[in-house]
């Protein structure tokens, strides 16, 4: 049963432009990673599944990174969404730059990567970083230490 679903997902992957970004073996690897993270075995990942990764849990921005996977108001992400978000992190190849000027920009282009980083700061998603949002980011980096002066004597 699982094999049937896998091949069906791979078929879907071939039609989706996101998946053209990844090679076949990369998609296979990401899918096996996806299934190993999916403890509930229902084909989607929840926030708890991500928090189970220790190296992500100790990352100061771990929660925001996890939120980047989940679109507005949803609590589950399927494999396509998973791949879409990861596609931002593909290295930019030289041959892609000159390829398709008219078509949609690939997800891993420079401006899309910057956009992604901007969205990590922009919590209320109004395309602006307010002073409060900036303070919130700095909150994660222990400002108390930064604002205190230690006397030597």
């Amino acid at each position: 049963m699982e094999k049937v679903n896998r091949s069906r997902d791979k078929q879907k992957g071939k039609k989706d432009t996101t998946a053209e970004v990844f090679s076949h073996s990369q998609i296979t690897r990401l899918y096996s990673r996806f299934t190993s993270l999916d403890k509930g075995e229902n084909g989607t990942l929840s926030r708890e599944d991500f928090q189970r990764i220790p190296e992500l849990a100790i990352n100061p921005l771990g929660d925001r990174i996890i939120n980047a996977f989940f679109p507005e108001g949803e609590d589950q992400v399927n494999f396509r969404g998973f791949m879409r978000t990861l596609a931002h992190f593909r290295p930019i190849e030289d041959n892609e730059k000159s390829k398709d000027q008219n078509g949609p920009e690939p997800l891993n282009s420079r401006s899309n990567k910057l956009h992604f980083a901007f969205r990590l700061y922009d919590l209320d998603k109004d395309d602006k970083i307010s002073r409060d949002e900036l303070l919130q980011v700095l909150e994660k980096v222990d400002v108390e230490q930064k604002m205190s002066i230690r006397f030597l004597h």
Partner: protein
Amino acid sequence: MGRPGSRLVSSGSIRWSWVKLLSGMVGKGLLPCFTFSRQQNVIYLLLEVIISSWLLFHSQGIIERDETPMEKEIARLHRVDFEFSDIFYFCRKGFEAIVEDEVTQRFSSEELVSWNLLTRTNVNFHYISLRLSVVWGIGVIVRYCFLLPLRFTLAAIGITSMIVGTTMVGQLPNSSVKNYLSEVVHLTCSRILVRALSGTIHYHNKENKPQKGGICVANHTSPIDAIILTNDGCYAMVGQVHGGLMGVIQRAAVKACPHVWFERSEMKDRLLVTKRLREHVADKSKLPILIFPEGTCINNTSVMMFKKGSFEIGGTIYPVAIKYDPQFGDAFWNSSKYNIVSYLLRIMTSWAIVCNVWYMPPMVRKEGEDAVQFANRVRSAIARQGGLTELPWDGGLKRAKVKDTFKEEQQKNYSKMLVRNGSVGSLSTGTESD
């Protein structure tokens, strides 16, 4: 950018190699069941040379990770204070962890570079050719219809003789004769059980074998580890009392020789455990204790954090490194996925259990070294010897979440960097105005 394994198999000339492999596997699986002499080493050596020289073995991650530490990475991006681009470092580290992290991969079976004709390791390989499927089919028939009944019978004989033998020896009064007989019984039954699993074990550096009154410490991959070690010597086991068949074996064994079994409630009380173990170690006539400080099964690619409890007892530590060869069968017990019965079934339908055991020179706690540092020292030695990587992470993360203190530590490190970069300027202006 695929892994070597996925482009490994091509049709044509591999046909002969697969036949060779299959016959090698079958031979490796059968021989230990039948031969009880030591001359098997030559045959095993030949088989291994043929098989291992053809099978490449190395592990490769799926992404290229940049291991530069936080300080260097962020300092490269800017010079002075907090900048927006600092987020890139944390972001990338987070995504690298999502795609492939060091910890969770240790709690599932290791991936093989080339397939060893077992379905269970066929995660990333697809249907390749009819010939290969036929060879695989023959393998299945051999393993399930031929090897499995043989092994099961041997295991039954081994367990029964263990229970009967230890009960009989347990009736004798305490004397050197009793100790000798109990040793004979334990060794024989262990050997039968190892044969039942088609185990081929190479012991290295036997001169460092654990002595009486010491503590033997090893990395943990499966419940079989104990049988592998008792095949070559007698140990006092430490563990919880179980119910069922395991409990019967435990109760019988403890009559013949002083193992240390704890009730479930007693295990929680660390002081009690340490006290009992200390008493055992202090008695120099008692057998060495066997402890697995990781506390849980890890998949034999790395050694995780050693719990410091075993290293607080005192006494001499005899480290032992155990490394299984994954081509012949996967020895790792993934307890969240399989229960003990299905695990044993999988072990008995693998080709064989091939492993190397290295006995290492004894270690003692140095002056001014606390239990944690000592544990880390022993762990490094074991990892180096067995060719395993070393991870500072706790094996308990298999089931538990990371404590928040670790996250705070990361935050502290980053803020220290900012303070160092910022405060250098402010301090110098402060002293100048004085």
